[in-house]
């Protein structure tokens, strides 16, 4: 369902992505791990074109994005409506309540009526366990609650794929479990997800496949059991050991 071919990107003379290839079926969750500066975030941001790669092709179902061509603003919008994104720093709209944040997309991008958008938003807040926080502003919520609202906001657009950029990294350790729980449930329900993270416990809980990204290329990939417990490459082993001892 997802096919990434030869995704390449430079910042000036620095190579960030060196021709990444990846394929993934519907309903699968793939977790990208790897050292900081290994191009993980850039990789994810290129997928919904918050950044543009220099070359490569990304296919989501019938939607093909060729990074050598400049897409129209309309194409970009269509892509983003089908591919949701969750950010490390949540980026909730601070001037709207939890409910308002989740309603924003359906109401103003899809043009749903306020009543429809609200009932969809309330369902989603219930799914992430925040029914009682609907009227709260982001500043009145904990980090974990904010990230769950952000996930609900992305889900409100009924995306075919959900991209998650370090969804637990900005959270205090004791708050990570609530977000992990939500994501595990999503994975169980058959959501197609691409995750970038340092959180190996999260990776173990949700991943169908783990990809180790190093120096802008795929160094190793496979089922989580093998990559996380018994990696083949020295660098993967180093990385896993270091992260586990953090």
């Amino acid at each position, binding site marked *: 369902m997802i096919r990434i071919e030869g995704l390449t990107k430079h910042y000036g003379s620095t190579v960030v992505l060196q021709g990444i290839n990846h394929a993934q079926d519907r309903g699968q969750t793939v977790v990208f791990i790897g050292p900081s500066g290994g191009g993980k975030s850039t990789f994810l941001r290129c997928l919904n074109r*918050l950044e543009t790669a220099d070359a490569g092709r990304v296919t989501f179902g019938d939607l093909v994005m060729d990074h050598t061509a400049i897409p129209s603003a309309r194409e970009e919008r269509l892509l983003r*409506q089908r591919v*949701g994104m969750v*950010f490390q720093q949540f980026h909730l*709209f*601070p001037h*709207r309540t939890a409910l308002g944040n989740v309603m924003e997309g359906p109401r*103003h*991008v899809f043009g749903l009526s306020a009543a429809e958008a609200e009932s969809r938003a309330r369902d989603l807040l219930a799914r992430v366990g925040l029914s009682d926080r609907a009227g709260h502003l982001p500043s009145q919520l904990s980090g974990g609650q904010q990230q769950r609202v952000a996930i609900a*906001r992305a889900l409100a657009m009924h995306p075919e794929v959900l991209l998650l950029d370090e969804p637990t990294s900005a959270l205090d350790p004791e708050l990570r479990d609530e977000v992990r729980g939500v994501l595990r449930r999503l994975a169980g329900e058959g959501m197609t997800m691409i995750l970038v993270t340092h959180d190996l416990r999260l990776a173990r809980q949700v991943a169908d496949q783990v990809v180790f990204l190093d120096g802008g290329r795929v160094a190793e990939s496979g089922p989580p059991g093998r990559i996380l417990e018994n990696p083949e490459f020295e660098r993967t082993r180093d990385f896993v050991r270091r992260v586990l001892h953090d």
Partner: protein
Amino acid sequence: MDAASRPAQLPGRCPAPERIRGVFLSLVLWLTGATVLADTWSDVRQRGSLRWGDDAEGGAPYIYHPPDQPSELIGFEVEFAAALSAKLGVRSEFVQNNWDLLIPSLADGSHFDVIIAGLERTPENLAKVAMSRPYFVFAQQLVVPTADTSTTGLADLRGKRVGVLSASSSHRLAEDFAGIDVRIYQDNVNYFSDLELGRLDAVLTDTPIAQVNLADRPRLRRGGPPFAPGTYAVALRRGDEVLLQRINEAIASLAADGTLERIYRRYDLWSPEQHVLATWQEAERAAVREQRRTLREWRTYLPFLLRAAVTTIWVTCAGMVLAAVWGLLLALIRLYGPTPARWMAVAYIEVFRGTPLLLQIYFIYFGLAQQLGLRLSAGAAAVLSLGLNYAANEAENYRAGIQAVPRGQMEAALALGMSRSLALRRVILPQSLRISLPSVTNDFIAMFKDSSIVSVIALVELTKAYQIRAIDTGDYIGLGLMTAGIYFTISYAASLGARAIERRMHRDPH
């Protein structure tokens, strides 16, 4: 000048106790209405020059720069002053001073000895300064467009707009005549331009001014015969008895020996009425009127000031609405517009921020009318000037606000599939406007005070009203306190209101 003859103490350098004593003394003088007694004649003789104050902007035929020799200064008053000084045996020394402030500056004493500026010998002026025997006889003259064939006198002008010079006889005459919409000007040139442009229905002015201006303005004519004759006299500080006597003798002699007639004929101003100058006798010393105590009579003056404050308020509010809307547009163009539009927005902002508001007002009120035929009313020109000027500041406030919104907000909105403009409207602007609000409301209060600058274009707002009444009454402090009180009350109320709005915005996100 050699260093030794300079005054030993400069005002800014005087020791603190003396400065306090000086302030105290002025306060006592003001409270008692006393005048400093010291004769200026000895200064004039010692200095060897008569320093006379006038406003070169007053124009032809009084005092002006001839168009072909802009560095020269000519006019019948320049020549009269020269002849008078010669008679006194001293040099003539012109001192430029704003017309409106001639009398207060004379009283202040440091700049010039006398005023020779077409100042009328009226009870009102005699109440404020001493005046010599007349050196010129003038009358009131109505000037109307040639298209107006019916007007022959003030009675035909009820409900019409009549331009007059601030604090002149024409001004008082027009104000006393019920039903005339009096428009006040600072000089003798702009009201003729406004009359030609259709912003006025008539101008009431002195005969010499009408004489000169009708000569090169074929679209204007005299509206009936001259009336209400009066005389110009030299104004002196009260108490300068010796100087007054010397000047009176000199004028009598200039009138008798035909010098005045020769001068006035050169400017085509001689008329049979001028013979009075030689035979004039002071009928009676004018009763010296006390300086008015406007604070005690606040019931008379406050309503006038409050009415003018209403003008100030609506000019400010309308100007701010324009600035807020146009400024936002400019900020958006500057940040998100196509490159050429972006450059134009930057140029606009820099030009309007980098040039004086006063200049912009003149440009918009007079310049647009002359070059483009765009005849804005004084109110519209005031609102437009303030709005266009402040829009440049507001644009920068908004831009700062927009740039202060974290980049992640735009990305989050785009990631939801929003277009850039929708993201701007739904996500960025609501946040940035909250950030910009305090600076914008500060500017609103600043504009409220800056609106006093529009008094230069025939719009009687609060500062102008103060100026008019202060010249009338001579009480700059009493009226000044009332006016300052009004400004302060309104701006303080506005800042309390602004703070309340800010608090509400923080509490209530919607």
